């Protein structure tokens, strides 16, 4: 059922908001012991919100998301509800304010079911670095969900919410959506306010949506996007309805297929994505071969920029003001050292060290400044491609979901797995991932459609067309 259909059922009183919330909470109880997609389930709050929503519906004042059960990634601040970033550091941290995206959902009387699992501080591609233990893939619970918004993707795939808010710094919405066989939209940088999103890499972070379809992601984006005085990097553009192009004729569009994205991918992934290209070709779209030569530098540039910003952003966690504080430490320096040693997991520490190293005065030019240059280069290369194409089609990840524990000890392999998604963040562009096939083990294969800046409408429409003609398999739960 799409969100539009759900809306109709709520408005026609075919379903009650409380009843709907209870259904989801029941499913969470049944399934989430294994899936572990939620860190915090907000049972009481959800029922309260649903009651309030029903009141609004009864008065005939329903907005698009009134009464719709949604999960929120646990790095997005929720007033009065703990927000952990899946870290021991913030295990008991309760924000005193709502993120703007959450406030906008609240203003429509949505129903928040809980806070979803993720990689610690959103650093990772498996969600296995969570302090609370990683989530499992609803298609095969021996496999990872992808990450970092693994809980968000799994919660949607397992039917534990109608839609989910995630965040995407280098693919963190799209890649888990691909692994869990759902749809994930990462909007253009500056579309959704970052106020209340606990920062990982500020110049790359963007709140995105995971849902059952492209149209649903756009439906949620309609509510959460917009200029916010609290985030100076938000765009002032008024975008109207992100679903407005859904159903329109897309056969005149030009779809770019950049060859570099297909070079290191698994055969099954490559074939599935190229088959999707064929699908569009049969519709009448022109498939344009193109190139992003700097892709080979993208992962390095991404890890330098994101780790540098992360090192700075995470410095505030010193045990002085909030969050975890070590019991050991005679003076400030000792206290902060022990607090951070005990409060952060290994992956977070790796990135902090990498980031600080890249910013050191002796290495700044070689690392950080070069990464900035590559960033400019990648933006230019995207501009060149978009002179010839309307959207770009790539795999979302080189592989499908792998077994839990498989890549843990191979950081290089883990980092290079981000190659298909990071350039979009580096260039600040919008992209959407959807399922385009299944591998021999039945695990979903994801493809991504990347658009011009602020042209979410086109990629949503192009994605929607494919989804309507594609036979998506439900996970066997």
């Amino acid at each position, binding site marked *: 059922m799409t969100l539009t259909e759900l809306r109709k059922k709520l408005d026609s009183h075919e379903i009650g908001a409380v009843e709907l919330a209870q259904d989801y909470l029941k499913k969470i109880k049944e399934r989430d012991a294994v899936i572990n997609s939620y860190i915090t389930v907000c049972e009481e709050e959800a029922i309260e919100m649903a009651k309030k929503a029903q009141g609004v519906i009864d008065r005939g004042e329903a907005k698009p998301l009134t009464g719709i059960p949604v999960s929120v990634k646990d790095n997005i601040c929720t007033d009065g509800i703990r927000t952990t*970033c899946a870290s021991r550091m913030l295990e008991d941290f309760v924000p005193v304010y709502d993120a703007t995206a959450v406030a906008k959902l609240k203003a429509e009387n949505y129903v928040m079911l809980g806070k979803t699992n993720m990689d610690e501080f959103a650093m990772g591609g498996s969600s296995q670095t969570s302090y609370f233990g990683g989530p499992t893939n609803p298609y095969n619970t021996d496999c990872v969900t992808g990450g970092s918004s693994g809980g968000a993707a799994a919660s949607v795939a397992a039917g534990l919410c109608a839609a989910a808010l995630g965040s995407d710094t280098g693919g963190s919405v799209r890649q888990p959506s691909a692994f869990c066989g759902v749809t994930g939209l990462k909007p253009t940088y500056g579309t959704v306010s970052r106020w209340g999103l606990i*920062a990982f890499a500020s110049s790359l972070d963007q709140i995105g949506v995971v849902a059952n379809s492209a149209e649903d992601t756009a439906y949620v984006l309609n509510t959460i996007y917009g200029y916010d005085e609290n*985030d*100076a*990097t938000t765009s002032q553009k008024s975008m109207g309805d992100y679903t407005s192009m859904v159903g329109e004729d897309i056969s005149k569009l030009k779809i770019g297929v950049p060859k570099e994205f297909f070079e290191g991918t698994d055969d099954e992934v490559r074939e599935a994505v190229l088959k999707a290209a064929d699908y569009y070709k049969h519709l009448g779209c022109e498939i344009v071969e193109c190139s992003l030569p700097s892709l080979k530098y993208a992962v390095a540039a991404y890890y330098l920029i994101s780790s540098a*910003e992360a090192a*700075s952003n995470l410095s505030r966690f010193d045990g*002085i003001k909030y969050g975890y504080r070590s019991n050991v430490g005679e003076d400030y320096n000792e206290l902060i050292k022990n607090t951070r040693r005990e409060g952060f997991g290994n992956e977070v520490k790796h990135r902090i060290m990498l980031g600080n190293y890249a910013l050191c005065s002796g290495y700044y030019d070689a690392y950080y400044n070069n990464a900035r240059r590559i960033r400019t280069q990648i933006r230019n290369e995207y501009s060149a491609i978009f002179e010839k194409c309307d959207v770009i089609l790539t795999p979302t990840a080189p592989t499908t979901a792998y077994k839990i524990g498989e890549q843990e000890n191979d950081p290089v392999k883990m980092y290079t797995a981000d190659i298909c998604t990071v350039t979009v963040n580096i260039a600040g562009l919008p992209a959407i991932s959807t399922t385009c096939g299944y591998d021999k083990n039945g695990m979903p294969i994801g493809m991504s459609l990347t658009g011009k800046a602020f042209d979410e409408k086109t990629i949503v429409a192009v994605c929607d067309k494919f989804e309507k003609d594609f036979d998506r398999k439900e996970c066997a739960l």
Partner: protein
Amino acid sequence: MRYQPVMGLEIHCEMLTNSKVFCSCQNEFGGGENTRVCPRCSGMPGTLPLLNKGAVKLAAKAGFATNCTVNNYSAFDRKNYFYPDLPKAYQITQFESPICTDGYIDVVGGKRIRINRIHIEEDAGKLVHDDYEGVSMADYNRCGVPLIEIVTEPDFRSVEEVQDFVTQIAQRMKYAGVCDARMEQGSLRVDVNISLMPIGSDKFGTRTEIKNLNSVKSIGRAIEYEIKRQADILDDGGEVVQETRRYNDSQDNTKSLRSKVEAHDYRYFPEPDIPPVVFTDEEIEEIRKEMPELPQERFLRYTEGYKIPQEDAKLIIAQKEFSDFYDEAVKITPEYKLIANLMLGEISHQLNDREMDITAVTFTPANMAKIAEMAAGGVVSKGSAKDIIIIMFDKGGEPEAIAKDNGFIMDNDTSGLDEIIDKVLIEQADAVEKYKNGNDKLFGFIMGQAIKAAGKGANPALIKEALASKLK
């Protein structure tokens, strides 16, 4: 002294905005601990800075006040370091692209001191140490107070140049409305970089930095101490260590805070949360047009427009409020010199005696103008004008009423004056005789007797005139 001192300054000024630089908390001095703190300035997770446009404007004005170029493009960077008074563990500042560059101020001896840059940054909080309990507590009220840092080239060669520069910066920032320049409260703080080189050399020695000097006097003393300390080291064949030092006012010495090896690597990088500040030429011109009168401009108005002696003009201008009071008064009664004399004379005298500031007096510039008008018009004598001022300081009141109540209104009726003077001349025949024999000094004595005889309110000018003609 075989050494030439070389100095450069970094001056921090707290800007007079209503709110802090990256949040809407009030920007004030004092108050209870952590009473002006919000999620933003206390560095709560998920918060983002919101640039105060008023602070940017004031920083541009600081540039105009110091002959700087105000740049079309400037941007913010992060300076990363851990300290409990810095809740985000980074300070937002401008490193690569400051708002103002390439300024100068001319100091004593006509020497030009170049200003490298002025940039915007946020202040940190304060730590309160409780030695009794053995704890330190953080007060974040000052976190996010908007600062500018004015950085000079190493152009200073003497203490006098430094002190004059700091005095001028304080005045200009005050006049431009950028900073209240209260050094004792820390709203203007000075760091001095200082090195010695052999006289005749042009190769700078190793420098030390003395941090957070908070009066013009202690700047002088700290520099003199540091020059001597470094000279002693060099005389002994030693090497000055590059380090940061703190000046202790009560002990009159400087002590090492940290050496170069211990220095932080601040790992600067562009602040991703704040888009660059971009001004068009027109916008910069708009800000320039809003510039209030600066002290050097006021000096010219006083000396050339009002014909006030240069030294007097400087004294009036030294304190902006004092000068503003003067300006208000002369606007009503354009007795430029008379009002200047009264203000630098009796008013300053009373302020000093009472340890008061002009901002604390209860009378107004209009009262001042009235006194000047009465004195100039011969309604009261200049001596009475001073008495009126004293009474206003003591009890307040309107100048005219004070003059009437105390009989200061001069009697300008000359009838009867002749008889009074004749009587005095008879009574003081001895003195008159001596005066006529050449003892000129006795004129004053006879004059005094005549005024006494004429009683309160007599016009001394008229008495003098009449007396002079009779003694001819």
